[in-house]
């Protein structure tokens, strides 16, 4: 049985927002660029608060940015 994972669509959303840079997103949500890189690569799961801030930076609901994948695929 695969371990559930949390996927995200940050890369796609940045692309849709005039190719927003990781640095620009980091500044918008008050974290370092390295943290955005880690989140995008699913190497770090943000706190709920940061997840909401990222979603709001894109003007999207949380579920559009972070997807809970129970199958782990």
């Amino acid at each position: 049985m695969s371990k559930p994972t949390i996927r995200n669509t940050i890369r796609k959303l940045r692309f849709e927002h005039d190719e927003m840079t990781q640095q620009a997103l980091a500044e918008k949500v008050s974290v370092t660029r390295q943290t955005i890189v880690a989140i995008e690569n699913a190497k770090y799961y943000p706190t709920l608060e940061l997840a909401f801030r990222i979603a709001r930076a894109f003007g999207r609901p949380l579920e559009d940015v972070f997807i809970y994948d129970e199958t782990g695929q």
Partner: protein
Amino acid sequence: MSIQERRTLLSIASAIAIPTVYAVYSLPGLPAGDAYAPEVFRFWGQFFLVLIPVVIVAKILITILFSIIDGILTREAEPDFEDERDKLIEQRALNGGQYVFGLGFMGAMLALVAGYPPSVMFIVLLATGIGSELFSELVRFTLYRRGF
């Protein structure tokens, strides 16, 4: 490699180098003869009291130099704040270091119980200090590298 990873590698190097250089410089002054003489305890007290500021000052200087050289080489601005991920990694790294220090402290006490001279206990304590910092930095590096 991110700036945090580079900074951690530097911390690993300085965690080994600073106490080692200081020990090589200071340990020849360890009084010979009676292993339980008051001079031996005075030596170790002075050794640790001087080691602490030496490590602090050396680390500050190394950090400043690193920031300047890294900034010139990579043109990457160093983050001037810690975010939630940095704080979590810091916490885990500190926890790891504390476990190692706890084990080393017990080892130092065991050396006394086993009848080794006090200098052995102090050397184990010194090694414990270096080991716990190294472990802490390795945990930090691993978490920055691999994620969690």
